[in-house]
Each structure stands twice: as structure tokens, then as C-alpha cells.
């Protein structure tokens, strides 16, 4: 499922990010915000009533705002609360 389909307040793990569908700068900025495969993310607020507005998400200890088009590029898997070891593992895999 995509990030924008996730109900507000529901944490999930990022399975896959379609980096190719994002511009180079956008991909870089998302990574700098801590959005990457294996991290946990939680949609917090959505602007506008029709679900078309920007989306505010918690990533790590940050809150970031993105557009629906970005959320559509982020595939998530529902999971339990943030598990630090798992995230760390994902980081190690990514590092290698």
C-alpha cells in the first residue's frame, strides 16, 4: 500500500520508495529527512478536506510535509511501533 492510503496516526514501515518517479532534488531531500527503505513513518495530518492537500508525517523525531505525489511514491507495510533494532538493521543493509 502507498503512504497516502495509510490512515492518519497509523505507523508503518517503508518497504520501497520509487526514487525514479521523484526528481533528483526531491529524492535527496526525502533521504535527508530520513525517509528511506526500512524506516518507520506515520501520517499525522492532512491539509484540506478532500484528501488532496499536503500530508504531514512523522519520520524519526521529525515532522515533515510532503505532497500526495511524494506519498504515492512511498510503499509502506503496516507494522508495530517503531523498532529501533530493525531500523538499524535496515541502515546496515543500506550501508553495505
Amino acid at each position, binding site marked *: 500500500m502507498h503512504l497516502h492510503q495509510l490512515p492518519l496516526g497509523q505507523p508503518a514501515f517503508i518497504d520501497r520508495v520509487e526514487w525514479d518517479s521523484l526528481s533528483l532534488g526531491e529524492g535527496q531531500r526525502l533521504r535527508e529527512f*530520513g525517509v528511506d527503505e526500512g524506516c518507520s513513518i506515520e501520517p499525522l495530518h492532512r491539509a484540506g478536506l478532500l484528501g488532496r492537500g499536503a500530508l*504531514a508525517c512523522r519520520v524519526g523525531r521529525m515532522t515533515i510535509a510532503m505532497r500526495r505525489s511524494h506519498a504515492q511514491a512511498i510503499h509502506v507495510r503496516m507494522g508495530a511501533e517503531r523498532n529501533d533494532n530493525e531500523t538499524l538493521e535496515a541502515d546496515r543493509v543500506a550501508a553495505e
Partner: protein
Amino acid sequence: MTASPLIALVGNPNAGKSALFNALTGARQKLGNYPGVTVERKSGRISLSDGRPVELVDLPGTYSLTPTSPDEQVTRDVIMGKQEGERLPDALIIVIDAANLENHLRFTLEVLSLGIPAVVALNMVDLAKRDGLELAPEILSKELGIPVLPTVAVRKRGLDALLKALTPVIGAGAIQLRPPAAPDDFAARRAKAHALAHKATLSETPSRRLTHAVDKIALHPVGGPLLLLALLFLMFQAVYAWSEAPIAMIEGWAEMLGDVATAMTSPGYFRSFLVDGIIAGVGSVIVFLPQILILFFFILLLEATGYMTRAAFLMDGLMARVGLSGRAFIPLLSSFACAIPGIMATRSISDPKDRLTTILIAPLMTCAARLPVYAVIIGAFIPARNVGWGVGLQGLVLFSLYIGGIIGAMLVALLLRRTVTKGKSSGFLMEMPKYQWPRWQDIALGLWQRAAIFLKRAGTIIFASTVVLWALLSFPKPPEGSDISPVEYSTAGRIAGGLNVIMEPIGFNRDISLALIPAMAAREVAVAALATTYSIEAGDDEEALEQSLGERLKGDWSLPTALAFLAWFVFAPQCISTIAVTKRETNGWRWPIFMTTYLFVLAYAAAGITYWTAVGFGL
């Protein structure tokens, strides 16, 4: 004195870098620009623990050393010793938000890889504690191999220890710059930052409870926009309601000064120059300082508390519809104070077409310099009635002028994005910082800097144009016994007469045409020009001299003319500084010429339509 060591403050946005800079330097700050680019350079002098003077420079916040905007480019170039006009820093203070350790440590690792000596300010430790984080700076210091000092910049806590740690670092030896790490080291750095943050965090509970609670209201799909609208409305009402007393005070001073000057001089050119030219002209502009400061106060407050990014978040949907991003909202809101900082703030927009569109519509946001013009006309022609719920009619008219500018800007943006700045719609990605109680000293410092800029303008551009206008209005004198008024006979009167042929169809009279010429220097000069014109026209007529500018206008102008004049100023590009800054930001004459042309066409059309409609309704 360029030989003193240079220390640069670096850090992610929202790390509290500027607060730390303010806390360290106090009011001893110097604002400038980097050559070739329009990025502001903020610097100040401080003393190390051993008394050595050093220069501290506040670099723009960035998330990494791979820049996506001109601001971030400067930060990267300075700490790599590549920035023109800036020497390589002798040391860095890396500012980290204690509550966002992992992310900020990743950037720290990237900066440290360059090899410049550094200390870390683990900032906002109090807020981190409030959010349930217990950190161990000593572990961090051991792991990073550099001093890590906990600070609370807004409370000035930890500053002495920071300077003490910095003292031995400076002048310890020549710096060997290392080549920057390859971008593909990103994941490795992140993993290391994660591990470091994990080690240095003793205990952790869910984050940002206060911020989440406030955001539940501030970002609510219905409540959020209503709150934003209410805040903006309050802001514009306050501009009128709070400024009454200080304005009356300044008017009193100007009047007193005029009386003193009249008493001390004999009738003639010098008295006319002093009283009609300088005191009437410059005084009529300085009177608006309170309103400008109130507006800036709100903008600084919204920025300092962290609400501004929420406003951008709420506005993104609307901005997207006209092809802009929520990011453009911040420069546009700043443009309500002045288009120049607004246009400069567009540098944080990475998409070039998005940025260009924002620059082109920024002058449509009603800047503070229009306030004097609006205030005089509204004060004279709109009755100070209450329309219910404590809302004044004058404030309401002012609010609608602002709305008029906004709607105009949105329509223009829509049109531009489909024509001259056509391209893929840009994204909207931004960090939403936690809410913070503003530090009043920082707000006061910001207000002082704005007031100084305004008064400097009043003392230079406005003073000079008032003097020139006075001369043009005073010479040549009509021959004795002539029944032509001195203003009509003067050089300025003749120029205005020519211009009036174009302006008459939209309801403008000769005095307005006359005021529009010097108003090209700065919009508020229009008021000064009208004041000078009427002051000279009144001559020695005691009764006319007693009248305020508003009363004179009310007697001379029809209501449709006044309304058309207001409509003109919603759109007219009357400020040479804005045109100049647009040229600088867009690297050429093409866009400023385009901007000036389209704004004049819009202003003419808007004033014309307003005039013809008002006349049609028999006003």
C-alpha cells in the same frame, strides 16, 4: 581588522542556529551580502575566553553539503573555502537540535569529514528534556572526538562553556582541508549517525507531545484554515487599532517641529523648504513607522514560533492550484512587509520556474510602504464606522485591499505558469519544526533592524525625492498678479499636466499624476508628495494650513478618484528598489522589465475599472 579568526555557525535548518548567533553576538551584528550572490551575510564580533577577538558568521541552514538552493550553496562554498569574498573559517560551531539527534548528527559527520576544527553545540536541550529525551553529551563528545556542549541559546545557557571549548581550537595550527565525501557515503553516514544517537540517548519517550497537541488544532482540515484566516485578520486590524496612539504622538512632534521652524525662520524660500519640504514631506512618512512595525512584529512572531511552516502546509493545496508550492507562501507573506526581503526569501525555493513566478507576483502582496498611502486615503474617505462584531469599516476596507492583491497575484501566477513560466509543477517538501515560545529579545532585535532600514529610507531616498519635488514644485514662480496657482505654474505642475493626459481617463487629477512621479522611488513618497504639494499650494492661507492632508484630500478629490487611487496602488510597481532586486535575483533586465510592464497595465486597468464602476453607481 580582517586578520581576526573567523568562526562559522553551521547546522540543519531549525537547529536554533540564529538564536545562538543572536545570543552570542547580542545586538552587535553586521548585515551584508556575499558578492555575486544575493545571500545575506550575518556576522558579529565576539571575544573568546582568553580575550581574543573573533568574527562569527551565521551560515544559512542546510541538510547536507549537496546544495539544492543558492542559500545552501553558500554554506557549502564557505566551509570548503571556495566562497568569493570569504576566508576559510578557522573553526566551526556545529549546531545540533538535541531533540533531533540522528538527523543532525548525519550532517555533523558530513561536515566533520572536511577537517575543519569544530565544536558541537547540542542546542535546545531543555526542549529535548520536555519531550522526554535524556542525552549524554560526554558520550557524543568521546565518539565524535570533539567537544560537545549542551546549550539553550534562547536562555543564554551554556554559552560560556561553548566559548571556553572553542578557545583552544582556534589558532592551534594550519587547517588541512580534506576532499568532501562522496554522496554515496550517505547511507553509511546515516547508519553511523543512527548508532551514535542511539548510544548518546539514555532514555526516550514519544516525541513532541506539545507540538502534536497544538498541531491537532492548527493543522485541522477545517479549524486550521479558519485559525490562519483569523490570525491574518487580527494582524491587519491590529495595524490600525494599535497604531492610533503612537501615530498621534509622532504627528504631534512633527507639528511642534514645524511650529518651531516657522517661528525661527523668516518667510521665504528657506522656511518653505524646511517646513513645506522637509518637515511636511518626511514627517508624513515617518508617521507610519508604528504600523510598519506592528506588521513586522506579527511576521517575526509567526516565524519565531514555528507557525509559518504550518501556514505553508495549509496553503500548499491552494498554491498548487495556481502552479506554486506552499513554500512560496513564506516569501509572499514576507512581501506583505516588504517585497525586497520577500523576493530574497524565494532563494529557498529550489525549482527555478516556481521561484521566478513567486518573484514576479511578490510585488502584488501589499507591502508596508503602501500602508501610508492606504491609511491617508482610507482615513479621509472611509467613515470610521463599526460594522458589527467590533469590526471597523476602515480595517475592513484595508483588509479587502490586501485580499485584492492576493487574488490578483493568484490569477497572475495561474496565467504565468501556463505561459511564460510554463513547466512541470514543483513539489512541496519541508520540515515542520516544533513550536517554540519566541524570545522577545530576538523579536525586538528584528524590529529594530527593520525600523532602522525604514528610517534610513526616510532619511535618504524619501528625503532626497522630497527635496527635489519641493524644488520642482516651487520653481518657476508665476508672475505677480497671475491667477494661475504656483503649483500649476511650476516645473512639476507642467510635467504632471503632460502625464495627466494619460491618467485623466481613470479619474486621476493633476496632483495624483504629480505624486506618482517621485513615488517611483518609494511608494510612501506619494503621501509626502501630496503633503508637500498641498502645503505649497496653501501658501500663507492660515485656514488651509490648519487642515490635515486627509481633510485637504477630502475637499479636493471625489470618492471615485480616491477609490481608483487605492486600486492603482494595489497593483502599481512603484518602487525602484523592488525592480532592482528583481534584476539582481533574475540576473538580467528581461524579467524586471516584464514585471514592471505587466504591473503598470494591471494598475491602469484596475484603477480605470474602479473609477468607471464607482461613477456608474453614482458615488
